[in-house]
């Protein structure tokens, strides 16, 4: 049916818009780049972009429930520091280390969810506090930058596959297929959107709100840890950098918004956030190939973000009961 297609498009128009924006910006970037379309260029871009893309996916899940997770950047840093200790040795040991890192991230997310659900605290303060705790643990693990990581694994994941496809992109697609798509089609994922759309209506419809939020925040922690693990493979070390954690947290929120997910919750997708993250990353590179001062980068990112948010606010012009603006 033609209308089916139309409804599908409307539901994901934010993601499509972000995807289109990325394609345009990336095409300009490649066109201006002195090497152009080449495997090393793509691999470097992928290695930088995928990290933020996965952290942005992590942020998307709580945002869909109209919550927020300000600890994703710190879980990302914590996972990085932990991985620089445990993802070493024989392949078997390294694999066990990876599992430990991911489990730690999931635990961090679970703690966030538990405090929000059972402690009934607001997500924003909860995750500011827990994020600081997670950073403290990261600092304890790695007081000064250093450590190591399983070199074979790192090279395989940050290089290119035969045929020139960056391995990181395959990892990203894998994460989407294993985490996001099942979530989107599961009862919990549906419930998460329902809560973000109208928590009262979801409750009245018999949705299990507590369990849904727990799963959502746990998955967010897991995804942030995946990104932290990948960071270790890129840098071959761990660093407890609060600046890096903060920047990733804020950029993840920006990526979510550019990707068409409403901060009010209820509508959006992690795919959009991925493109939002790639757009943010490419803007930085774009200034580089145009030989502009890197100083301009925050200004450009800010303007793009403002434009993206303004589009979402257009519907307010139609409101006839001004009180609804505040609800």
């Amino acid at each position, binding site marked *: 049916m033609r209308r089916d297609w139309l409804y599908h498009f409307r539901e994901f128009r934010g993601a499509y818009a972000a995807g289109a924006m990325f394609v345009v910006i990336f095409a300009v970037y490649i066109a201006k780049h002195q090497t152009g379309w080449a495997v090393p260029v793509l691999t470097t871009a992928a290695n930088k972009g995928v990290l933020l893309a996965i952290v942005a996916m992590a942020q998307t899940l709580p945002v869909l429930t109209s919550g927020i997770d300000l600890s994703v950047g710190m879980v990302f840093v914590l996972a990085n520091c932990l991985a620089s200790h445990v993802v070493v040795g024989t392949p078997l040991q390294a694999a066990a280390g990876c599992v430990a890192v991911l489990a730690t991230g999931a635990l961090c997310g679970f703690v966030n969810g538990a405090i929000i659900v059972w402690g009934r605290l607001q997500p924003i303060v909860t995750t500011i506090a827990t994020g600081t705790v997670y950073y403290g643990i990261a600092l304890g693990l790695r007081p000064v930058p250093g450590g190591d990581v399983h070199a074979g694994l790192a090279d395989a994941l940050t290089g290119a596959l035969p045929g020139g496809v960056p391995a990181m992109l395959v990892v990203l697609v894998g994460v989407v297929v294993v985490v996001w798509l099942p979530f989107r089609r599961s009862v919990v994922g*549906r419930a998460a*959107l329902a809560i973000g759309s109208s928590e009262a209506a979801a409750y009245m*419809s*018999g949705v299990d709100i507590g369990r849904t939020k727990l799963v959502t925040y746990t998955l967010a922690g897991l995804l942030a840890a995946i990104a932290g693990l990948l960071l270790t493979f890129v840098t071959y070390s761990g660093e407890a950098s609060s600046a890096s954690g903060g920047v990733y947290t804020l950029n993840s929120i920006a990526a979510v918004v550019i990707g068409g997910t409403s901060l009010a919750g209820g509508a959006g997708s992690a795919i959009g956030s991925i493109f939002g993250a790639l757009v943010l990353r490419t803007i930085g590179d774009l200034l580089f190939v145009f030989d502009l001062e890197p100083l301009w980068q925050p200004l450009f990112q800010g303007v793009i973000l403002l434009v993206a948010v303004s589009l979402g606010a257009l519907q307010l012009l139609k409101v*006839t009961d*001004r009180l609804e603006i505040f609800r």
Partner: protein
Amino acid sequence: MEAILRLEEVSKRYGGVHALERASFACAPGHIHALLGENGAGKSTLIKVMAGVVQPDEGRIVLEGSERRFLHPQEAVAAGIACIFQELSLMPDLSVADNICITNPPRRRGLIDRRAQRRIAEAALARAGAEGIHPLAPVASLSLSRRQMVEIAKALAREPKILILDEATSALTAADVERVFALLHRLRDEGLAIVYISHRMHEVAALADDCSVFRNGRHVATFAAGTRSNAETVAMMIGRDIEHAYPPKPAPLPASDARTPAIEVRDLSWNGQLHDIALTVRRGEIVGLGGLDGQGQRELFLALFGVLRGVSGEVRVEGEPVAVRSPREAKHAGIGIALVPEDRKTDGLMLPMSVRDNLSFAALDRFSRGGVVVASAEAAAVAEIVRRLSIKAPELGDAAGTLSGGNQQKVVIAKWLLNAPRIVLLNDPTRGIDVGTKQEIHVLLRRLADDGAAVLLYSTDYAELIGCCDRVAVFLDGRIVRWLAGDDLNEHALVATALDVAAEATH
């Protein structure tokens, strides 16, 4: 007839107020049972008890012969009770099909089976007589009437044994009402037990097999539909005890009173929810707005106060045409309108701020020079108004949220009086307030009028309208359908007009 669901001697208190007092009710398969009663009679609480939204303090719920307790709406749904509430329970961002299947989506290998979900949604929409709604459309894109149809389809998809509809037709277009009536008759013939709340008596006459009347949280009578006249039914619904005396009213102003009215409204319409409202209030008058809750009274106040966009018609204050575009303009000295909103906790007060800050907030311009608040002027005015309204606040620096409900309401009224308004709009100012404070507010309103203000009072309490107001405009579907004054202003006439059975019931 064998009842499928029985409530026995159910009681529910909110604070000190009895919403339900030892109320009993039973419904049977293959019957449509109408619940009747005026505002606040306890009907809504009763169905919330049935639907597991509210737990009764006392009493038993017996479903199919065994006693049950529903701690959560989910449990009532699982037991076969589906409820369609006045406030829609739809998630606006989700699609129609997602909404219909939200409680128990069809699954394949753990994931939602979208094809099966779509089949279920299409079947449920077809059963509700709403095939025209596309299952993938987001609910937010549908009109209110269509949303209500989705709500009905959602309830049907749960295959209930008992279906409860609370004012389910109030938002429907005429065509959809027809569909819903046909559907309800069909469902009844299929053996469902249907509980139906409506304030439209002709709907009850067209639909119901049995009727139960409630008053003040108590069950009054149950009878087969058609065995009592509308007049008898209305008589059962009223008869509330007069709680206390009201301040004496002045002699009615002569119709030929030549003074310019304080406020004059002509042909005021808004967004399909207000139609051609015309009214005049003179200084010294208290004019009431009557009718059932949600007939446009709130919207009229918001329109006069400048909150609504796209209002058409003419408003004159002291003879001068005005266009009020915001509450800030409304309270300006040249216009001087004050609105005491219906929800004091969200719209009336800033609960965490101090009583003093709340009191002076609407009139800060009067106490400031060059944008700086003159603390002495503020303190003097606040102390004066606290004494005048005898607001009981242990300490003016305490948060407004720590006061009792009655004193909070006094603060809301007082903060507007500091602005010396010419026109005072009050939206149900005594709802949920103790009798003593109520009485004080009634005296205050009369004194305000005597001092030259024009007062417009909306109240869900008919006794209050009768006791306080010089004239009452009865609202129905966004229109003023009747003016009541003098001896015509009695509970019988108010209820009958509100229920639209005026012609036969007034005698």
